[in-house]
């Protein structure tokens, strides 16, 4: 069984890469897939905190590449889902502690055991980013409806193409429909027109994300109660090959638009 290695990246920091990785990973695991999340942000690890697993770390990715432990020893099993694993980054080292080649070896051996290996890339385009993409065969770019984030996403698309990662897909995070309606936020169509890549999903701004990060519980665990959680669940299903149309909370239907225009909603 050879799984897929997918890198989640963005260029700009703070657009929600780590939250996205945690949620897509959890959602895939809830679909009975075997999933491993790799935190490639060495020196600034965060995926463990978002997953609520920070107090279980004994070994990390640098221990694995330096031979202080075996790969299986460094994998942390999620506390809610037995088919989900985390390979944490080292906090007290820097990006140069792992080379792209080592990363590639690591993802090669992980994908033998997993259906999906999701790599959470650090912000930026330096070595940490190069490490993160080196083992990946598919790339997901997270962006927000801001000029700076889209500019960086565009730069990343170019770099990924240079590295041979063709056809990256984009997730638009933190969209606020009311602002889009007022014309104060770029809409999905605007952004897709500019970036000219496939749209994997849209995640609405949701206060529950803050709460779920506080608790260390990915929001997809409560997908029935939150719009963002549902959006991440849909994205996971699309990643797994399901043809799923964008839902009304992701993209307004024509009827809703009309309703708003005539003042019905």
């Amino acid at each position, binding site marked *: 069984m050879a799984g897929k290695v997918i890198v989640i990246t963005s260029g700009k920091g703070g657009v929600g890469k780590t939250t996205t990785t945690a949620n897509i990973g959890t959602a895939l695991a809830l679909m009975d897939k075997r999933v491993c999340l790799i935190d490639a942000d060495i020196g600034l690890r965060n995926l463990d905190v978002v997953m609520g697993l920070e107090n279980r770390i004994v070994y990390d990715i640098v221990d694995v590449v330096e031979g202080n432990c075996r790969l299986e020893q460094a994998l942390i099993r999620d506390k809610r889902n037995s088919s989900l694993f985390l390979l944490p980054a080292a906090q007290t080292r820097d990006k140069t502690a792992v080379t792209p080649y080592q990363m590639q070896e690591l993802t090669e051996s992980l994908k033998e055991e997993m259906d999906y290996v999701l790599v959470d890339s650090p912000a930026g385009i330096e070595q940490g980013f190069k490490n993160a993409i080196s083992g990946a065969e598919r790339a997901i770019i997270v962006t927000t409806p*801001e*000029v700076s984030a*889209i*500019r960086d996403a*565009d*730069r990343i698309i*170019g770099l990924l*193409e240079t590295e041979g990662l*063709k056809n990256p897909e984009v997730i638009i995070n933190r969209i606020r429909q009311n602002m*889009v309606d*007022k*014309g*104060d*936020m*770029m*809409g999905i169509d*605007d952004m897709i027109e*500019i970036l*000219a890549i496939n749209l994997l999903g849209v995640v609405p701004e949701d206060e529950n994300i803050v709460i779920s990060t506080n608790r260390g519980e990915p929001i997809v665990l409560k997908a029935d109660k939150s719009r963002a959680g549902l959006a991440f669940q849909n994205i996971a299903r699309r990643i797994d090959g399901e043809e799923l149309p964008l839902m009304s909370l992701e993209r307004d239907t024509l009827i809703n638009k009309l309703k708003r225009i005539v003042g019905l909603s």
Partner: protein
Amino acid sequence: MSKLGFKTEAAEPSKNIAKERLQFILIQDRIKLSPGEMDLLKKELLDVLAKYINVDEKNIRMDIDRHDGMMALVANFPIKRSG
């Protein structure tokens, strides 16, 4: 009254401004031309074209399009209607 007037004046939604700025920034990022070089390019193209046709200088548009890993500089020089 004045409130109403203000509202209609600010008709240009900020998302359009964002989009325009972004398109301009991305042209420079994608072909790695500075704004100065871009202006120069535009001007030289205009000079050449102006020898043969009557170009509407105010409405020149330059975009970078990307399809399947290929990039193209698309320059739009509208022609002035004569007469």
